[in-house]
């Protein structure tokens, strides 16, 4: 009986979790996942004009960046006496940098995740996670993965086209180990983005008005993740502070890996730190969710 109670916590009627239950849960979550996938495909396809426009438009800001940095480098050359790089970034590096951060962001940005969680908390939708045998974070993650996959399926074309057209800006493919590190850091960027933003969303269990907080996060995210410029440009102390934050792993770090700005021991160390941040935020999100739900059910919804 002792062993059984260790297993059977939380299951109604003291039933023990059997292999069959586990399989059932897996089938159930697989089904949820497919439903999520189908819904997001259909959502995207119904509004065709919108859909086509938005994928295409996403690349327009790159065009202005190309011209802006061209003008910046021109300005440098007129007075700088032949200096052709900014903190080790050539003009081509800058353009490649922006293109690659767009790719990182495609993995790490989680539109509507935190705000969705806080909304669910406010309007009581979270109750369903208390009643149904579905784990909130797993469900949201499954939905997000489905959503992202659909997005990649559609965006792959435009991305490939733009990267091909801009191939001249790239320094070429990195070595296989670096490439592997790059892919790993992209996947971790996705996980980090997800769990970081989920954690922020969970704050909604304690405070009703999270909108301002979300905006501050978005702002910092945009500026400090390296989406706006290579973080190496930050002078002195600023660089150190930003280097200590997890945000840089959402956009800057993977890109810097690809461009060979981080190598050797720094690369290995960076990947480890990124992994540590991912683990950290998985933990915080889980803890926050568990506490939040307990608090929520304690109040009786």
């Amino acid at each position, binding site marked *: 009986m002792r062993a059984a109670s260790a297993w059977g916590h939380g299951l109604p009627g003291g039933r023990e979790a059997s292999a069959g239950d586990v399989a059932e849960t897996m089938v159930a979550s697989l089904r949820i996942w497919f439903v999520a996938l*189908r819904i997001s495909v*259909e959502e995207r*396809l*119904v509004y065709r004009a919108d859909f086509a426009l938005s994928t295409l438009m996403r690349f327009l800001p790159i065009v202005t960046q190309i011209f802006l940095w061209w003008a910046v480098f021109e300005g440098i050359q007129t007075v700088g006496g032949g200096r052709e790089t900014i903190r080790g970034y050539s003009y081509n590096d800058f353009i490649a940098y922006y293109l690659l951060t767009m790719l990182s962001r495609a993995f790490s940005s989680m539109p509507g995740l935190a705000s969705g969680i806080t909304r669910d908390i406010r309007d009581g939708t979270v109750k369903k996670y208390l009643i149904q045998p579905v784990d909130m974070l797993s469900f949201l993650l499954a939905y997000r993965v489905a959503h992202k996959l659909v997005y990649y399926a559609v965006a792959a074309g435009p991305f490939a086209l733009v990267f091909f057209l801009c191939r001249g800006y790239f320094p070429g493919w990195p070595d296989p180990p670096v490439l592997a590190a790059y892919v790993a850091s992209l996947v971790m960027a996705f996980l980090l983005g997800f769990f970081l933003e989920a954690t922020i969303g969970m704050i909604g269990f304690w405070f009703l008005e999270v909108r301002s907080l979300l905006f501050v996060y978005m702002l910092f995210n945009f500026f400090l993740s390296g989406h706006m410029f290579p973080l190496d440009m930050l002078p002195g102390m600023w660089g150190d502070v930003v280097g200590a934050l997890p945000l840089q792993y959402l956009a800057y770090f993977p890109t810097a890996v690809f461009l060979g700005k981080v190598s050797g021991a720094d690369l290995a160390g960076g990947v480890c730190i990124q992994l540590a941040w991912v683990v950290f935020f998985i933990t915080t999100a889980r803890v926050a969710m568990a506490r939040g739900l307990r608090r929520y059910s304690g109040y009786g919804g």
Partner: protein
Amino acid sequence: MAVIEIEGLAKSYRVYQKQEGLLASIRGLFRRRYRTVEAVCGIDMTVERGEFVAFLGPNGAGKTTTLKLLSGVINPTSGTARVLGHIPWKRENAYRRRFALVMGQKNQLWWDLPANESFRLHQEIYRIERGRFERTRDELTSMLEVRHLLGQPVRELSLGERMKMELIAALLHSPEVLFLDEPTIGLDVRAQYTIQNFLRYYQQERRVTILLTSHYMKDVSVLCRRVVIINSGRIVYDGSLNGIIDRFSGHKVISLQFTDGRVPGSLGGLGEVLSPEPPRAKLRVPRGRVTEVLTHLLAQHHVEDISVEDPPLEEVIARMFARCEERPTECELGHVPELLGEE
């Protein structure tokens, strides 16, 4: 003098048919399927000044579309209409100052602000002179018992109170013609009653011309002498309220109370027994057989009380609509009496 003249008014529009399923929605990317909906197909009618006309019809019959056409909010596919001598869909300011449209399911007041702020906006838009504006507003708010709510944000008002405010907003510029689309929908009985009373009083006082659509027969029977029934975009009936029963119901209801406290079992042979609640019962009998059945009843049974009534209006109309949905083509003007007689 005719205020509203409608001739052959028709409106059809295309709607996009969303396809179910994944493959179909992909196909939808390339080719969209549309279907044409005939909302109104050839309406003729004339309304005199000071008339209060009710539009009845099942959902989707074309009532709202007709009101929108007369408001100039949408363009007709064919036909003509004149309201106060104007063609509505030209949307001349001179016309738009003279009528109002109230839609029970939509609201135009600023949601977060007190109704009074929206009223002031209307004052500016319609250029209502200040003194007159305040007089009209105060009079209307007192009549509808919402004067004390003027300073309260609209979102905090109950549905009934909000509807009253919507109505007031529409009446501030003293329109001569008023189109009311389901003004009492979803309201509780008390609010419905207040609005009915108000509309009746207001219409008699100001001699405005009103077209009303409503699902509540009570609204119609209290307010309107003239009823126009629309179905599938066509006018099926245009006449008095009582005329509907004469025309569409071939039955009468006989209410009986028996002396011995029991309802005789043989009653079923005489007509349709509606609600046997001993010692009372109701019997539905075709009109032509009423005398015969009455004679029989009085001769064979001990009847304490007896009365003959028309069936309730709601029921007549509901039966008619149900019929129309089953066999819409038969619902043209000429066919209806036969259709209902056959039951």
